[in-house]
């Protein structure tokens, strides 16, 4: 069981609330750190001001973000030795082919479209939590970094 934090990169406060609620309803107890834009997410993962970097068990990444967009965040995560092995799930509204293709090309571990119906979203969050925090064997610490 990965008990590290989950980094939720999401600019829409409603979606933040729904995601927190879904994890809570699914009894996922991991700490959830929210970054409300791409720049903030990168600052957390790859700080340049001496603050200790966040090493989340899972990154949930929206695509349409202010400042630095989600795909660019993903590109930089994969480009840096310190973060290139992080599990990143793209969690977004769009099912446009180019977003899906580009996400996988940049090294996303998974691509999930946020369902409109909350019940379905709850289910998706549960599956994501189950798989990435429970089923999946994470990268051993201090190896990939």
């Amino acid at each position, binding site marked *: 069981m990965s008990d590290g934090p989950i980094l939720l990169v999401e600019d*829409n406060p*409603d*979606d933040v609330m*729904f995601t927190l*609620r879904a994890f809570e309803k699914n009894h996922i107890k991991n700490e959830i750190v929210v970054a409300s834009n791409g720049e903030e997410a990168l600052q957390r993962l790859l700080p340049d001001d001496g603050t200790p970097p966040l090493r989340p068990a899972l990154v949930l990444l929206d*695509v*349409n973000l202010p400042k630095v967009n989600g795909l660019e965040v993903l590109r930089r995560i994969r480009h840096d030795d310190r973060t290139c092995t992080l599990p990143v799930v793209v969690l*977004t*509204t*769009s*099912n*446009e082919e*180019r977003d899906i293709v580009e996400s996988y090309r940049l090294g996303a571990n998974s691509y999930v479209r*946020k369902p*409109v*119906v*909350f*019940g379905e*979203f709850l289910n998706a969050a549960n599956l994501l939590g189950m798989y990435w925090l429970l089923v999946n064997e994470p990268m051993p610490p201090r190896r990939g970094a």
Partner: protein
Amino acid sequence: MGTEVGAETTDGPAGRPALRPVGHEQLMALLDHTSAVIYMRDVDGRYLLINREYERLFNVRREDIRGLTDHDLFPADIADAFRANDLRAFARGVPVQMEEQTRGDDGERTYITVKFPLVDEDGRPYAVCGISTDITERKRAEEQVHQLNAELEQRVRERTAELEASTRELDAFAYSVSHDLRAPLRSLEGFSQVLLEDYAEVLDEQGQQYLGRIQANAARMAQMIDDLLDLSRATRTELSRRPTDLSALAREVIAELSARDPDRTVDVSIADGLVAQADPHLVRLVLQNLLGNAWKFTANRTDAVIRLAVEARDGVDVFTVADNGAGFDMRYAHKLFDPFQRLHSTAEYEGTGIGLAIVQRIIVRHGGQITADSRPGDGATFRFSLVPAPTDWEIR
């Protein structure tokens, strides 16, 4: 030139009269009755002989032209060009062909000219002969064709650029729709759910029902947005034609429909070997929608029948999807292919009414046609083609 040109003077075969010598007069008569311009000039460019067409064309008499050069008759640039071509024929020693221009009353005239030198016993050239044929009309026609082609190409380039621009715009629009328009719906749906879960005790049954309706409509609108995106995708996706097996695609689609609806018994018949040069991905969408509709609208029949076949009409393959389901009133047939037009209530048959609009776009993009034929309660038949048809041809 007064030299007599000899012809054979011996008796001709089989008792034909002997040929008489051909003299200068006869040869001149021959030259005077051709539509070509014929002339002879000496090594210095002085005229020795011209034919009648030359006289007519340049309004000069043969007795006046002897001893003159082209520089006495034509503007310097044209005379220079003629002289250069004469010299070329002298230098080459063999017939040479070239295009020459003069200026007439109606603008520039173009000739195709053959020039060849005449040589004396010592092999020295002493004159040049020229035969020029007026090709101005052909030349003008060619230029016109050339210009029309250039204009047409330019127009095609402009139209292509316009089309590409509008496709890009549509693409940008669809992209923004797919990102931005669904988010507020998630909030509507999600907060209704939060209210139902967290505030159930302060909401009476009616209040809870209303929230349910908000949720149902949010979900429906989300479905409509997805359908619109599908519709725009059917327009935006690049068309790539390949040999496509419609029979195989149809069997896959039917298998999916029965898997989703295992209790239904439908008599499905799909003709073997239905092939077309078409985009397999888009044709699959066509079959999904047409067969899906047939499946849906036969739901109330225990003896449901769905058929897919092909008929050749005037050399065009016309594919037919027929069912014996609910059908529709032909009075509304013109609305059938419009987005979000439904001929049945949502309560009777689910759906947003986008399927046939997608089908039609795909068919049109293939250059094909689609028609529908039906009577209420008596099933529906859709006919479509996937290749451009001859002019004025219509699926009947």
